[in-house]
């Protein structure tokens, strides 16, 4: 069932309010889950479970938040930064994320900044409206 972007955003905001205990006015589209909303690693799994329920879909591991496979592959990381092939992999794995700023300084410590509310909405919009 196709859903409008506004509907998806509203549902995502509710999921994040419940999962992270934040106020809904904190959940702006460009808020980062870790930096702005205080998410920790287990919260990402909680968010995935809640999104699956809220939208009645399956979200495969590593599809929405694919950091782990990047971090564990030495070809993708050099001196704490993503390599060219690492960036390429990131682009393929996270088409729902805007990496234009990140690629200027692909420090892996800033990888968390890519996980924004907007990225979740983009991902869901594509996923829900693909069928």
């Amino acid at each position, binding site marked *: 069932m196709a859903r409008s972007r506004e509907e998806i955003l509203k549902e995502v905001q509710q999921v994040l309010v*419940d999962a992270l205990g934040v106020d809904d006015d904190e959940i702006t589209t460009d808020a980062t889950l870790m930096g702005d909303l205080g998410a920790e690693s287990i919260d990402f799994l909680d968010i995935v*479970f809640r999104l699956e*329920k809220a939208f009645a879909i399956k979200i495969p*591991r590593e599809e929405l938040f694919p950091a*782990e496979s990047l971090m564990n592959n030495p070809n993708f990381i050099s001196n704490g930064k993503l390599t060219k092939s690492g960036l390429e992999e990131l682009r393929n794995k996270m088409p729902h994320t805007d990496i234009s700023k990140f690629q200027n300084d692909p420090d892996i410590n800033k990888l968390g900044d890519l996980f924004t509310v907007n990225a979740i909405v983009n991902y869901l919009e594509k996923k829900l409206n693909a069928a």
Partner: protein
Amino acid sequence: MRWIWIDKFIEFQSGDHAVAVKNVTLAEEHLHDHFPGFPIMPECLLIEAMAQTAGILVGEAKNFKEKVILAKIKKCVFFDYVKPGDSIKIHAKIESIAPEAASTSGKITCEDKLIAQIELMFSHIDQNLAGKQFPKENFVFTDMFRSLLRGMVLTRPDCDTPKSEQP
């Protein structure tokens, strides 16, 4: 699990839900101080009872192969006190389970009274924490707790439970 805080299971549906019972007694010394003249079961120990009930349910769903650790208290609401002499029922249900984690919901009741609603997240720690290594043996599900499940779970052929415990 280094200590057992529930008395027995009265329902156990593998991978779905379980109900455990705990009997509360004034012989539990912490009740003398919590509070003097007004003994009530501390809420954190109600959460522990749910963590054990739901944790065993989650562990059994993966044949006790995973080290299941309480990772997050998602929600916790308390409606009433639990006093010495009460027999509480802990109802746990698996909401979602994935290779790396599980989420559960549940309630605690005393007779017909709702005591608490508790939602938890468990981590399968070998699958998480960026590949950090943990001891090979499963220090979560030791032999100690298995008596709780005697007669409740149909032991599967590939399960670690000793044959003598099969129902």
